[in-house]
């Protein structure tokens, strides 16, 4: 058993960490969030360019044949943890982990064409999978792709599509057959974001990103834009969402580590009743509990990441997400509580880490959703 990273992985972590420490300050991040950055609304294209060209991290999980670094899930975990630490809002998750993951899994002409664009930073992809009625059920789809000659006509409404306002492509789930929640009949498409018949309503999200409601009205989609088999894509969608879920667990590890470290620091400095609040046992025990939550989150995220390519994938990911979701809540709420009033002001970074940790709790399924899924898989 070896939990050490390889030299290449260590270098990847150091490179990303150094770049973010040097350039991605909290103030700079907030400028991006507020749209005060050239060419960006909710993201900074210059940062993305640097990810592609200076750091080369957009190729982290892709094969060398595509121009990537030859890594996989562990590389995604490493990058996502650093993304969590710096509260990065740029779309590594939907573009590299999710869309990249789908293309990698299926291969073929589309993968050969698009993966190099992802690595070069020219393809930015949003994942349009959730629907207003669907909650966390990936098969609960009203969006349809009806056969039209050799291709399809796509119609429907996708909700809260992170990164859609500035994406070049949309990765969309739709029904090519079956009833609303059937396992069969789900297909996956990669379409240009500006395809005729696509319209959006853009808005900011509470955790500092940009998202859209995306509407499709008889959007013409070629058969070559389908990823995976027609009507049989649900297992692929579940796989990429599991990979994405493991990735945001890693992001949560970064977020909660910073929440804990910042709070610990504050507790050592802040004085009340003549001594540092960290001298009070109630605060000490709380910080210890937070520490234990973070460490367990890191451990179970590692477990899930290492099982992504095994038969235990789904159970491992649901175990991790439920545990990490609880950690996000416990560490986030207590970080704010121990900071007191300033914890709920919008000026301090701690509140923004708390907002992100709160959104991660619900992303790709709540604690309850994942515990139920875990039960179904392991207990029956």
């Amino acid at each position, binding site marked *: 058993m070896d939990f050490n990273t390889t030299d290449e992985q260590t270098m990847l972590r150091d490179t990303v960490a150094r770049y973010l420490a040097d350039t991605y300050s909290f103030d700079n991040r907030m400028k991006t969030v507020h749209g005060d950055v050239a060419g960006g609304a909710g993201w900074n294209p210059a940062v993305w360019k640097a990810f592609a060209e200076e750091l080369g991290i957009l190729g982290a999980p892709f094969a060398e044949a595509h121009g990537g670094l030859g890594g996989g899930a562990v590389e995604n975990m490493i990058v996502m943890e650093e993304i969590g630490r710096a509260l990065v809002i740029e779309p590594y998750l939907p573009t590299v982990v999710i869309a990249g993951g789908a293309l990698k899994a299926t291969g073929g002409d589309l993968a050969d064409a698009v993966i190099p664009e992802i690595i070069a930073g020219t393809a930015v992809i949003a994942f349009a999978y959730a629907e207003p009625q669907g*909650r966390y059920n990936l098969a609960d789809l009203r969006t349809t792709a009806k056969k039209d000659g050799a291709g399809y006509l796509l119609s429907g409404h996708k909700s809260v599509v992170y990164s859609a306002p500035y994406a070049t492509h949309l990765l969309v789930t739709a029904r090519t057959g079956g009833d609303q929640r059937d396992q069969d009949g789900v297909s996956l498409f990669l379409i240009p974001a500006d395809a005729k018949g696509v319209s959006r309503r853009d*808005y900011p999200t*509470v955790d500092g990103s940009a998202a859209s409601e995306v509407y499709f009205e008889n959007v013409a989609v070629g058969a070559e834009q389908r990823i995976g088999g027609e009507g049989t894509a649900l297992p692929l969608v579940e796989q990429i969402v599991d990979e994405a879920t493991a990735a945001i667990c890693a992001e949560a590890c970064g977020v909660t580590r910073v929440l804990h470290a910042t709070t610990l620091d504050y507790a050592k400095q802040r004085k*009340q*009743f003549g001594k540092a609040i960290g001298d009070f046992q109630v605060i000490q025990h709380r910080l210890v509990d937070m520490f234990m939550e973070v460490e367990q989150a890191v451990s179970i995220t590692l477990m899930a990441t290492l099982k992504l390519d095994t038969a235990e994938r789904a159970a491992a990911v649901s175990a991790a997400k439920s545990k990490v979701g609880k950690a996000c809540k416990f560490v986030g709420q207590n970080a704010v*509580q121990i900071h007191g009033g300033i914890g*709920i002001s919008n000026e301090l970074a701690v509140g923004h880490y*708390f907002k992100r940790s*709160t959104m991660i709790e*619900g992303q790709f399924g709540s604690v309850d959703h994942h515990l139920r899924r875990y039960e179904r898989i392991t207990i029956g």
Partner: protein
Amino acid sequence: MDLSFSAEDIAFRDEVRAFIKDSYPPHLNGKIEEGEELSKEDFLSWHKVLAQKGWIAPAWPVQYGGTGWTSVQRYIWSEETARADAIRLMPFGLSMVGPVIYTFGTQEQKDRFLPGILSGDVWWCQGYSEPGAGSDLANLRTKAERFTGDDGKEYYRVNGQKTWTTMAQHADWGFFLVRTNPTAKAQEGISFLLIDMKSPGITVRPIITLGGEHEVNEVWLEDVIVPVDQRIYEENKGWTCAKFLLAHERTGIAGVAASKRGVERIKTIARSELDEGEQLIQNPFFKRKIAELEVDLSALEFTELRTLAGESSGKGPGPESSLLKIKGTEIQQRITELALEAAGHYGAPYFRGFGEGDNEHPIGPDYTHRTAPTYFNMRKTSIYGGSNEIQRNIIAKMVLGL
């Protein structure tokens, strides 16, 4: 022992219900339900209706403008206003400084300040917290030095900084704890001053909170001149007023009636939201959380009723009120957690609320718009009014004798 309402109580409840139905300002409908940020005018329009009716200060003694209601009637009142989603009035005048003034003030001070509180013509804010003090309230540094003016009258010159001053941006007057004797022990040497917020030397700066709201402020006081007759009670004995006020603040803080309404609202959301094609409320996990919330809320409600019964038999609110603060705020926070959880994906869009001239429809179902900002905002409840950690210390020391 009797849990049922008398015929008089039921008649009173019907009267209250009818009055709210007929008199609640229609333009405020829906604002509480959707968690919208409220303007000064919003608060005042309901305040004025109640002031007109003489129902603005149920907790005050009749001689000062109270309603003379029994504790059961007051309970019915808060139930009915919460049930109707009516705006909760700003507590600074009515629940905080008002009772301090009629308890500790001179006749002249009562005559001068109480009418404006009742009518709503004077908006108050509270100058307690300071940077670096927080729940260690007595650790305050704002100082007031006494001097004789050129007119031969006595004044204080006040210098310092207050923070977390709720709604100070609207305030006409503020009540401040200031240090009048710097050499005395922490809790001795504090005085309780009423200060006109338009006084030269006062600067109010907004603090924006996590939900994007402007509720709280920093207040800077630079050589603010305050006549001595604006001090309540004796010089250096302000801690007595402060403690009295805090105990009063804590009794109302449980927020049982509003929480009951909050639980009902979650049920409504959970009936509308779908989960695996069924109502979310049928999800056994979610249903269990609602049930646990209701059970805990019942326990809190009856604890509050016991406390109220004790008060009406002559006991003032004691350290037991810390229990109401801790459990009440925990339940309020759990309600916002569940609402956000129920909102699912639609908890993420950030929607600030309808601004002036803004008629864009928000994203997602109406009940989801402000779930996340409200959740973030309500983290304050376990921090303000003496953090819940401090409340536990109070129970440990005062109730358990530890």
